[in-house]
């Protein structure tokens, strides 16, 4: 319990956010929007970490550090992903994920 806000509230929030992200990842065709869905997912995980850390082990800082690292990784990932997306766009003038199936079979 954190000053009236139970842990489960955080968890429910992050769950909803997570699955919204999942939904977006599954449905969206545009690569960039898919990337945005991934950001949502990452963010929901961050919330979990932070909430667990604060409410269950307030004396520790692992959750926070993890979140920091996740943010760093997300940044790295976003930059690489966007580089790839732009590269793909240059090549096929489209960033629709369904068109990207040259590597099948």
């Amino acid at each position, binding site marked *: 319990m954190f000053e009236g806000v139970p842990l489960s509230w955080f968890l429910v929030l992050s769950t909803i956010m997570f699955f919204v992200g*999942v939904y977006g*990842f*599954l*449905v969206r065709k545009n690569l960039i929007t898919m990337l945005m869905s991934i950001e949502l997912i990452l963010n929901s995980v961050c919330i979990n970490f932070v909430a667990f850390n604060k409410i269950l082990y307030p004396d520790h800082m692992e959750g926070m550090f993890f979140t920091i690292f996740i943010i760093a990784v997300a940044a790295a990932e976003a930059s690489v992903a966007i580089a790839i997306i732009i590269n793909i766009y240059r090549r096929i003038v489209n960033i629709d*994920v*369904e068109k*990207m*199936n*040259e*590597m*099948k*079979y």
Partner: protein
Amino acid sequence: MFDFSYTIWIVLIPFFAFLLIGFLGHKFKPVVSGIVGSAGLFTSWILSIFTAYKYFFDVGKIDGVYQQIIGYHTLWLRFSDTLYIDMGVFIDPISVMMLIVVTTVSLMAHIYSTGYMKGEKGFMRFYASLSLFTFAMLGLVVATNIFQMYIFWELVGVSSYLLIGFYYERPSAVAASKKAFIVTRFADLGFLIGILLLSYYTGTFDFLTLTSPTGPAIGTPPTATFIGMSVMTWAMILIFMGGAGKSAMFPLHIWLPDAMEGPTPVSALIHAATMVVAGVYLVARMFPIYVTVPIALQVVAWVGAFSSLFAAVIACTQHDIKRVLAYSTMSQIGYMMCALGVSGMGGHEGLGYMASMFHLFTHAFFKALLFLCAGAIIHAVHSNYMYDMGGLRKFLPITHITFLIACLAIAGIPPFAGFYSKDEILVAAYHHDTALFAIEYIVAGLTAFYMFRLYFGIFWGKKQDYHHTPHDPPLSMTLPLIFLAFGAMFAGFVPFSALVTSDRLAFDIHTEWIIAIPSIVIAIVGIGVAYMMYLKPTQIPAKIARSMSGFYTASYNKFYIDQLYLFITKKIIFNNISRPIAWFDRHIVDGSMNGISYVTNQASDKIKGFQSGQLQQYAMVFVSGVIALALVFIYLWT
């Protein structure tokens, strides 16, 4: 005891002649093959005669009984401790008699062929096959056990096949050879199964053991039965089936007339005198067992009688002289079979047996003679058909006389050979079964009729315009004719009842004139009818043919048996069995194998579809899988 082991050479000399001609024949002039073959056979002939003299008149008889001697034997193949195949020489009256018949006729055919086959392309091949045949036939007659007999039985079949197909460029010859082999092969299947049955229940192949009165076949016969008949009956009927195939008994006779496609000396040797009587010889060899199974013996008698009548009727309507002779052969063999069928064992009971062997002996001479004469005629006229002939007596005097002698012999006019043997058969039949006697009696008349139809048609009748004057053949061909004519005249005087009998004991016979006279009468009637109808060209034959047109046509077409066979083989076996099997194999059996591979391919094709390259599809599957697993582990897996 006199050592008969040299007799193996009677058999082996033709074999070596075969090897010699077969491997080295092409290195020399063709005539060398003929000389080698004939010389080899001459040696065999001399040895056979010597053996016969020794056996019958010197050492064979002990206490009035002719002994059964194993002249030579060697183990050839062992199946088990009791079942083994020996190769050897079995000497008893009938085998010695057959040795004489086979070597004599074969020698005549060999000599005759040097003239008849002169200039043929396959001369060497011809002599090789002829030697092979002689070897096989001799091996058959001296067989010490039923399996040795079967082995040589097959070998004579194949040499017959090779010789019928000698003119292999003629489609009819090829078809005939094939037919002969396959029909006899079918019969041999019966023979083989018979052997298997017999050997299974008696535990031996050996003739000596089998025919011994105390042996496992006669003394202690097996009691097992199958569909109401004892296994011995089955075995003997099946073995007779083999004999019927080789001896062209109804309904397995169809190959014999076609076999006339072979060169004429071959017809004389194989399809008249020797190979076709192998069936008779087989039954005679196993006769002591046949006597113990009356049903089988009954079958032998009736099949023989029916075949003789059937063939005689057909012979009356044929125009190809060799075919007439072929049907006549079939008819005469039917006679012999019938005689065996009506015979009993021992003494006077065994008259039929003796008569059968007697007839076999005399028949060999006059039928071989008839064929060789036919060969001489064909040689001169270049046609097989009666309607191309006529008035030949002036051109072919020697052939004419010898042919006439043979005709008289086969018609049963005394004192020619056929009379004596045929008379004995009729007597035996008369004492056994009147119906059989009646059939044989009619056949005797028919025989006289169709033989003289042939005789008058060829040598008298209307004179034809021949392109070049026909003339008697060269000495190499007439000599055998004359020799055989002597045989046909005097073979009847051989005292068979003293030499060849069912129990190997001599017994007295006397001509039963009560039967002999009617038989002479009917023969003369037959000759008379032929004389009226065919001496001069008349309308009578045509009229008769018209008046019984249905029967005549049926007989002319050999009662459609050939068509029936053709129907069964071509339509049923070929089209309705073989073809569906081939189809079944390609489409069902092979199809199911291909089906398996098709299914595998399709499955992999479908599975391949999951690997679509669609990222979101993967993600979808992944997420649902995770959720499903979570559900399973949380709620279902408690």
